[in-house]
């Protein structure tokens, strides 16, 4: 007889214990990030019978054949893709929201209106020193608001670039980690617990990388993965080799990315979002600069055409022609040239003030800033819709994956009972073997 009852029982108890351990492991990792539910496949140990005695019983018990990892490649890929889209939308939206806040909350629009109102008020009595001082102080507020807005915009840009640079560093770290996982996966035994946890690590790393840029993956039969990033798809991780991702910042603050020197566009993920937000930021900065410069040139040109309160030729009120450099250089309100050229001191003729106000209303900076605000806020509103749609898609993809690969505690509770009973039954079988042995020994007494 090729089998013995005791070892069959022992093998059953061992298999049941293995299954119990896997169940306990599932329960322990019910809320671990990236953990995929394991299940055990228990198979019969088939031993061949001795030649010529085929009719003999050839039972050899059972063993744990495979610790199976219940991962679904399609759902994982879908989750990575939707997450990359969501991250792009998130970063772009938060960048745009910051731009909106910078332009809106600095009150630049209000200060332009106040400046116009102060000029209009001055037209009521152009020689009144209080009204002149009011114009000058509103001009200073206006310049300061432009400076503040420009400062806030550049810190929005710095924040976006800082995050993007950190993301690129993370991307390189994860790439190197993934290459190491690849090497170990190539050596891990199929169906082993080791392989399962390496695959967990691999998928976790892929998920993290997909938050930064769009990645495309090619899986080999041994579980190793080759990763290409962005478009055009450029090889980043292949076997144990990993490329180097770099970022560059242009003079206008926009960013470019490259892998091993080959330029790529990230396509999706937070890097793509940052690149988009930075492009918007650069465009807004240009429009803000042109609004600042239109105010400065309209007012300064008009100043040059008139004479100040003391009868001298008008001097510029503003210096600088960008939002960051706009400042008031006129020191006293009496320098505002309200009277036309050739007028004597203390002239109440306000022809030049009228021309100045006309030039300002022709340049219409209030409308320009209003349209900047409108464009930014309309973009934010549009992106919010996109983002919430992508969020729903990404969250349902994640839930779909979790439902398939996550741990269900009720299931595990049932498994716990099942394998516990199997263990007890195997133990019982071993006891029976022992009883039989005792009976046989007792025959001789």
């Amino acid at each position, binding site marked *: 007889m090729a089998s013995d009852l005791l070892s069959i029982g022992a093998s059953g108890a061992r298999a049941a214990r293995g299954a119990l351990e896997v169940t306990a492991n599932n329960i322990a990792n*019910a*809320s671990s990030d990236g953990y995929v*539910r394991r299940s055990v496949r228990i198979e019969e140990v088939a031993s061949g019978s001795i030649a010529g005695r085929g009719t003999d019983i050839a039972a050899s018990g059972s063993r744990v054949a495979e610790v199976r990892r*219940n991962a679904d490649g399609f759902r994982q890929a879908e989750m990575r893709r939707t997450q990359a889209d969501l991250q792009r939308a998130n970063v772009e939206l938060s960048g745009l*929201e910051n731009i*909106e*806040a910078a332009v*809106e909350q600095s009150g630049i*629009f*209000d200060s332009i*209106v*106040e400046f*116009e*109102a102060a000029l*209009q*008020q001055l*037209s*009521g*009595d152009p*020689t*009144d020193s209080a009204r002149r001082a009011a114009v000058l102080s509103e001009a200073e507020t206006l310049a300061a608001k432009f400076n503040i807005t420009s400062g806030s915009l550049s810190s929005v840009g710095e924040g976006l670039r800082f995050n993007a640079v950190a993301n690129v560093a993370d991307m390189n770290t994860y790439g190197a980690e993934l290459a190491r996982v690849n090497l170990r996966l190539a050596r891990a035994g199929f169906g082993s617990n080791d392989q399962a946890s390496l695959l967990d690590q691999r998928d976790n790393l892929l998920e993290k990388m997909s938050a930064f840029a769009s990645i495309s993956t090619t899986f080999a039969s041994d579980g190793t993965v080759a990763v290409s990033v962005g478009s055009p798809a450029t090889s980043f991780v292949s076997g144990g080799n990993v490329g180097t991702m770099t970022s560059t910042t242009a003079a206008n603050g926009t960013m470019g990315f490259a892998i091993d020197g080959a330029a790529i566009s990230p396509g999706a993920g937070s890097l793509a979002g940052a690149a988009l937000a930075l492009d918007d930021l650069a465009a807004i900065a240009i429009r803000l600069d042109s609004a600042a410069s239109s105010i400065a040139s309209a007012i300064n040109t008009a100043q040059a055409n008139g004479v100040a309160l003391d009868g001298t030729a008008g001097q510029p009120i503003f210096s600088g022609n960008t939002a960051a450099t706009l400042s008031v250089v006129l020191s006293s309100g009496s320098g505002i040239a309200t009277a036309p050229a050739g007028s004597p001191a*203390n*002239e*109440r*003729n*306000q022809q030049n003030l009228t021309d100045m106000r006309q030039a300002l209303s022709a340049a219409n900076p*209030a409308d320009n800033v*209003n*349209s900047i*605000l*409108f464009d*930014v*806020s*309309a973009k*934010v*509103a549009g992106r*919010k819709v996109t983002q919430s749609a992508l969020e729903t898609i990404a*969250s349902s993809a*994640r*839930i779909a994956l*979790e*439902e*398939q*690969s*996550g*741990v*269900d*505690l*009720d*299931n595990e*509770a*049932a498994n*716990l*009972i099942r394998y516990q009973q199997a263990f007890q039954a195997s133990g019982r079988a071993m006891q029976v073997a022992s009883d039989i042995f005792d009976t046989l020994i007792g025959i001789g007494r």
Partner: protein
Amino acid sequence: MINLSTGAFYERSTTQIGSLRARAETLQQQIGSGERLAHSSDDPVAAARLRMLDREERVSAVDTRNSQTAENNLKFADEAFGQAAVMISRARELALQAANATTSDEQRASIATELDGLRQNLLGLANGRNAAGHALFGGQAVGNAYQIDSATGVATYVGTATLDAVEIGEGQSIVPGNTGPEVFSFTDSSGAQTDIFAELSALSTALRAGGQTAADAARDGLTMLDTSFDKVTTAQTVLGSRLAWLEVMTERRTDNMERIADERSVMGGADLAVTMSRLQEMLTVLEASQSSFVRLANLNLFSMLR
């Protein structure tokens, strides 16, 4: 078999409860601020319109101030006209008295003295200042409207020929007063341009000369004073109509402010009744999903294992 993953259950529940909470908080914020828009991006079109309304309102506030200044100046001028009319009437009474044949030369001389005094007072009025300290009847001039020669006492108009109009909003403007010549100058019977100051001093000189010429000059002076009186009262009437126009514009501005306030509350205001009931609805749903979440979370096979 669909595997109901525990993680998926918790993730779904947090997403749902979180989004309900976020919506309830947005509503709460709208109730707290009374504004429907916290950021421009909440409704870009309404936000842009609100900004333009703010601008309109600000400009309108300056218009109000300018129109108040104009109104003050007009009232100053109105008062001066009233006083001038009284003085000219008094001058006419005196001239009538001087024209009387029974009036003696001494009496005429004393009338001449009173006429000189009246002329000084009229000049004082003509050189009056408005609220901002500029000449009331000097056009755009800074300082006095009439310059008085210290030797001869002759008054010469030194102001500008016209007074610039002041904007009072909606493209309307108003001239906030009159220039001296518009009030005090006129053409005499021979068609020559003259003013009341020159005529008064000529009259008082003639009265001092005495005799029949003085009586004749006084009679001529009556016509001149009538013309001058007419001129002043005409100017006062024009001024009155300007004041009425200002009032109309002020009313229009008030109506406009009301319209702006109305439009603002329609565009950006949160309707309290609607918002409150939506918040209540949201809170009911939130409570229901929270309690169902707790019940489902307690439904666990492990709690059955003893």
